[in-house]
């Protein structure tokens, strides 16, 4: 073994880059796809949830049953709307729902809890959400909605509680938990991507390592581009860095490689996270402008002690950038040094995989080519104030085309084929197309038949599908999907 420490860049065996819109769904799905493609494991799909409060109970119905019953249709203001699917109540003792209404008619119960339970059952049967009711007091109830499928696609579904009986809400919190690739000399950690409304942005990126969490919030705007490997990623946005504190666009996270053969301690738990606005113009990271987080054999934490700041190492050279004798910059491994929270000291923790330190100033978030390889510039500082001019680079492969055919997710509403229609026959829950084509319609997606909204349980083939609910026998009626 050589006495001199190797300064070679450590390359992983899988890297990817991808751009996607900054809305929460696109972001979460885009990051997930990219990370999975480079070896991360999808550990959990988190369903979207929401709730509304019924502070004054709910209407009830009481017998005796009277005849003839009044035929009632959908009122202008439904009792509950779930993402456009409407539910209204009727009195089963004196009323009967009209056929062909634009809402689901739900029988009121003898008690508020039974009315709301009927409503929850109807929601569960006819929407992509499971609904349940809990009683907080005899007149105070909470109805909870949980998407039947995990992921962000059912975030932001508007739940209209009528305003008279219940509150309004939107679902949130759907997303994914991903686990970084295993390497015996790199700390494995989890990233939870969810949509959670916040003043600072609606994208929540939570890091779990060492038994604790670190949280970064990003703003759902612009276009994001991710460069990822199995151990971390760099996110940048077309809108730049953002402004303190309300717009937050950039993020760099990497678990250092700690090879025992190079004097590192592979048993260390370590993670290095740079939040928005903390790193673009620096290669030492002082928390100015935003959060930086490190984890070192303990839960993730924010540093106030300057000695603990994360810092890269470069050949000390204040002022003009350092070059080799042939005029080319010096490029070597990205050694990262930082301290344990509240320790007051730093150590060299490891080398950042697929990253390099470049002995010069480059345009942050731009790209540079070194010996035929494209690197993205994560951060860069000049040699002013007697700092060392240096840049942190991450190897960036060319963007890969989307797989063909496109991945099946996300499902409704993101990939619902638009403006389909035709005529069909209905027999119970079975539907046979007389014209038009059912191919590509997604499970749990809505379909309107003869003016009545339904949800699709399954699509058998181009002309046959099954609804989630049985209905009557009809022939030659019109079907449409939104």
């Amino acid at each position: 073994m050589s006495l001199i420490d190797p300064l070679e860049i450590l390359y992983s065996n899988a890297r990817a880059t991808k751009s996607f819109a900054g809305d929460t769904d696109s972001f979460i799905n885009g990051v997930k796809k990219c990370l999975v493609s480079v070896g991360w494991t999808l550990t959990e799909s988190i369903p979207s949830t929401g709730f509304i409060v019924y502070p004054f109970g709910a209407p009830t119905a009481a017998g005796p049953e009277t005849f003839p019953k009044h035929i009632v249709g959908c009122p202008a203001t439904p009792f509950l709307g779930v993402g456009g699917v409407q539910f209204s109540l009727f009195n089963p003792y004196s009323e009967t729902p009209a056929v062909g209404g634009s809402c689901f008619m739900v029988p009121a119960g003898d008690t508020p809890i039974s009315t709301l339970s009927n409503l929850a059952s109807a929601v569960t049967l006819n929407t992509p959400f499971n609904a349940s009711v809990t009683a907080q007091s005899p007149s105070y109830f909470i109805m909870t909605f949980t998407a039947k499928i995990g992921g962000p696609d059912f975030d932001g579904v508007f739940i209209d509680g009528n305003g008279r009986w219940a509150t309004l809400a939107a679902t949130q919190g759907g997303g994914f938990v991903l686990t970084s690739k295993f390497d015996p000399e790199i700390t494995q950690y989890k990233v939870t991507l969810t949509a959670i409304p916040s003043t600072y942005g609606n994208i929540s990126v939570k890091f779990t390592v060492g038994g604790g969490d670190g949280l970064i919030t990003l703003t759902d705007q612009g276009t994001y581009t991710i460069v990822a490997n199995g151990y971390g990623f760099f996110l940048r946005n077309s809108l730049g860095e953002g402004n303190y504190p309300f717009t937050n666009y950039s993020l760099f996270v990497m678990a250092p490689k700690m090879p025992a053969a190079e004097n590192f301690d592979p048993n260390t738990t370590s993670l290095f996270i740079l939040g928005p606005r903390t790193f673009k113009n620096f290669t030492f990271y002082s928390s100015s402008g935003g959060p930086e987080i490190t984890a070192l054999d303990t839960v993730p934490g924010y540093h106030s002690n300057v000695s603990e700041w994360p810092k890269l190492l470069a050949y000390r050279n204040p002022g003009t950038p350092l070059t080799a004798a042939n005029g080319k910059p010096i490029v070597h491994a990205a050694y990262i040094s930082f301290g344990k929270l509240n320790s007051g000291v730093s150590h060299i923790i490891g080398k950042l995989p697929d990253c390099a330190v470049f002995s010069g100033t480059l345009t942050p978030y731009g790209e540079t080519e070194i010996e035929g390889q494209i690197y993205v510039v994560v951060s860069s500082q000049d040699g002013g104030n007697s700092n060392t001019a240096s840049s942190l680079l991450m190897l960036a492969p060319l963007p890969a085309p989307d797989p063909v055919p496109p991945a099946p997710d996300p499902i409704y509403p993101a990939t619902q084929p638009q403006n389909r229609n035709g005529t069909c026959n209905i027999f119970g829950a079975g539907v046979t197309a007389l014209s038009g084509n059912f191919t590509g319609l997604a499970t749990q997606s809505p379909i309107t038949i003869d003016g009545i909204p339904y949800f699709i349980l399954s699509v058998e083939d181009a002309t046959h599908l099954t609804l989630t609910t049985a209905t009557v026998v009809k022939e030659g009626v019109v079907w449409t999907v939104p």
Partner: protein
Amino acid sequence: MGIAYSQRAIVTGQIRTATLGIFLSDVDIVMAQAGWQKIREIPNGAVYQCFTPDKKLSAKLQVAEGASSFGGTRVAFTPLSANEINRGFDYFIIYGNPDFPVYQVIVGVCQFFLSIPTLATSPYHFDQSSCFAFGIPFVNNLNNGVTDIWWANGDGGGPFFVSEHFRISPRCFMRFNYCLNGVMFSSVNNADPSQGMLTLFYLAPTWNLDTNIGQTAFTTKFKTGQPINLDALVGWQHVVQGQLWDAFQRTQAEPLDAIQSYKDTDSDGNPMDLKFQVWMSSFYDSLLLLQTTVSPGGGNVAY
């Protein structure tokens, strides 16, 4: 990269200071042992010439009686280009002070280091004249247009004229020369660190280390407590010009003048047991000079 082993004799020895004659005689002996050629004798001195192991680069060193000062009688070490057109500072070394009867030297095929044992700074009153270093660096194949290159640094040579040099610091201040392809630079007294003075390049945090923010002695050590071992890259004007021969750096302060044992492998993968002397020890960086002569045949592992 790796250590640039000259595979030539490494001479460690002492220069006695009792008289000028003894001083010059001892210099003459170590120079001969290290393979330097005595080009000519001059009044109370001589001029020596050294070559790189491949004989492609050369420089000279004049050692002769110098002007006395309030600090005492002095010898002047003067670096010269091979053609003697460029002449560096006279780097003065006091002799004849009974409190310091010997200097230590480490002389390689084209490097010369001299200091008082255990001391990094001058102990003499009224004169900063106790350290000197000079050499032709190992030049890698990226720098193959080089025909003439050497460096020198040392003490300030006068009262209160404290300079920084390779016995104290990886970066030189106030009293150094470097020369590349016939163009020599001599330091000025009011330079600042951003002007690209003669330096060893070592890994460190990227902020201004010349201030005192956020510095801990552990910053450039591994969590195991070990520092990084680095090539002894040397340069100036923000350019890595080459590498000191038979030397490396460690990113922590090591005990000054300690003799430390290390293992390395030659280019054929054969293990080598080596001893190095800590010649310079500073907060972020130490310079270690080889004391063991590496036999030819093992190959040079540098670049």
